[in-house]
């Protein structure tokens, strides 16, 4: 299946905020943040089904997230992952000399990954620094 090039933004949502205040290891946080919002046209183009997993790749990493129809309309060509652990697996740390990373407006490719599982927040962060002891 072809990889679909898209422009990625990562921003806040009230679901993310509400879940974060319950704790980042809470299942609500996992459900609120490990998702990508796409335009239905783009999903069709890439052969992605609603509520199936996709692999998002940027210049500096990949992450598996669940694809849903945008809760707040995304135009074709734009993708949105809510701010949080999953988004930051692909956010480029380049800052244009201001200290602020490129959280919004960076190129990614999105492809179906029906058989791949989403990782938990702990698995991603502890895994990145070699502390994850659980199963992969």
């Amino acid at each position, binding site marked *: 299946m072809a990889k679909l090039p898209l422009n990625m933004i990562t921003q806040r949502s*009230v679901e993310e905020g509400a879940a974060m205040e319950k704790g980042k290891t809470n299942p609500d946080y996992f459900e609120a943040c490990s998702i990508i919002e796409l335009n239905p046209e783009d999903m069709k183009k890439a052969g992605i089904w609603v509520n199936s997993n996709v692999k998002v790749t940027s210049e500096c*990493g990949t992450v598996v997230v669940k694809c849903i129809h945008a809760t707040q309309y995304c135009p074709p060509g734009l993708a949105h992952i809510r701010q949080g652990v999953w988004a930051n697996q692909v956010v480029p*740390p380049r800052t244009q000399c201001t200290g602020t990373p490129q959280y919004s407006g960076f190129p990614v490719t999105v492809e179906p990954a029906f058989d791949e599982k989403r990782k938990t927040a702990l698995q991603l962060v502890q895994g990145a620094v070699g502390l994850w002891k659980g199963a992969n």
Partner: protein
Amino acid sequence: MPKLITQVGCPYCGSSCDDIEVVVSDDNKKILEVHNACIIGTNLFFHANDPTRPKLPRMRQADGTMKEISYDEAIDWTAKTMLAAKKPLIYGFGSTNCEGMSAVARIAEKSGAVLDNCATICHGPSFLAMFDNGYPSCTLGEAKNRADVVVFWGCNPMHAHPRHTSRYSIFPRGYFTQKGQMQRTILSIDPRQTDTAKLADVHLMLDQGHDYELFDAFRTVLRGHDIPDVVAGIKKETIVKSVEIMKKARFCMIFFGMGCTHTDGRNHNIDAAISLTRDLNTHTKCSIMAMRGHYNIAGPGQVWSWIFGFPYCIDLSKGTHAHMNPGETSSVDLAMRDETDCFVNVGADAGAHFPIQAVQHLKKHPFITIDPNFNMASEIADLHIPVRIAGVDEPGVVYRMDNVPIQFKSVIDGLPGVPSDEELFDKIYERMCELTKTQPVWLTAKEDRKHPSNISAVNEA
């Protein structure tokens, strides 16, 4: 009898709502009900009831597990580790009170650290634009009472500041805006049709990352010049119509957020926004405000500016004077260049909210997390020190997004033995002074300090 506490401040977003009511159990230990707050604030207060909240510092062992240690050991380890480091980085402060921010300054100075706050990954570019171009701003009260045209540029308060629109910007009835929403015209500039954009009279769905062009087009039209038929994906007619609305306003209020600071252009977008505000003031009254994210993220900007002269990215490693140069002394850049050899994360979660590569670089060196709860930064830290939750079981001064200071109260008793940020930083500072055989310098103004208790004896010694 459960008690009702009124006029409680909410320690979540930059709106810093101070009309929350909380019902607490008669022993002052448990929060039973939360009134008036949004879902995020409600969850935050109830999370303080969590019986699994950490009560002792935890140190990572050789096998990767965490073991509970005493506060004295944790304070000793932190002081020694920070003194041994050549350039420690202290980052966070999105969620603490100003007392804690002031106390940490002594530690930063003593250890020659870089002192940075969440603005570095948030409204840092806004600061840069303000340095260059000024900040013609006002208070949220003025926005509520006067603004009849409200522009949301790259911000989505319905999600990030859930009560902002009902308290200050869209719905409330003010002194000159007695018809509330009926009297206000709302403009939203956002590449998505956000829930805020759905409330707007005009939604300019621009091409993502083209904010600068659009701001420029607004200014060009305002100055009476012609623009191309389409700018940043927006038709000329829509831009001209929007400018007319802003020009005819009695008081125009521009709120801007992460849509401007996280994307290409960064501070230059804000620069253009401030220039647009200035231009509009030749026709009517116009004001601009940054939608600050946390309830007290304006606090470090204030506190450190009066201590060091800079709001964020403060490099104290020279030992003689503070110096600030975002891009060089900013947290993510320091991490990516491996220029820091000890990381202290306070009241924020760098583990979750920094790009993961920056976290990997930071984790090469001692990693200390000071936070009331378990989060990603605490779960990868070498040492996690729990503290009280400012605004829940610790009172303090906070600065709302419009830089108005508010005294927050505590609603429940803190966990026994768990210090506030301020107490913890003071103890670490005192330990640092012991280790370096120097005399601690306490401010005499702080006579109501909690630690050390015998301040006069300390000053006389």
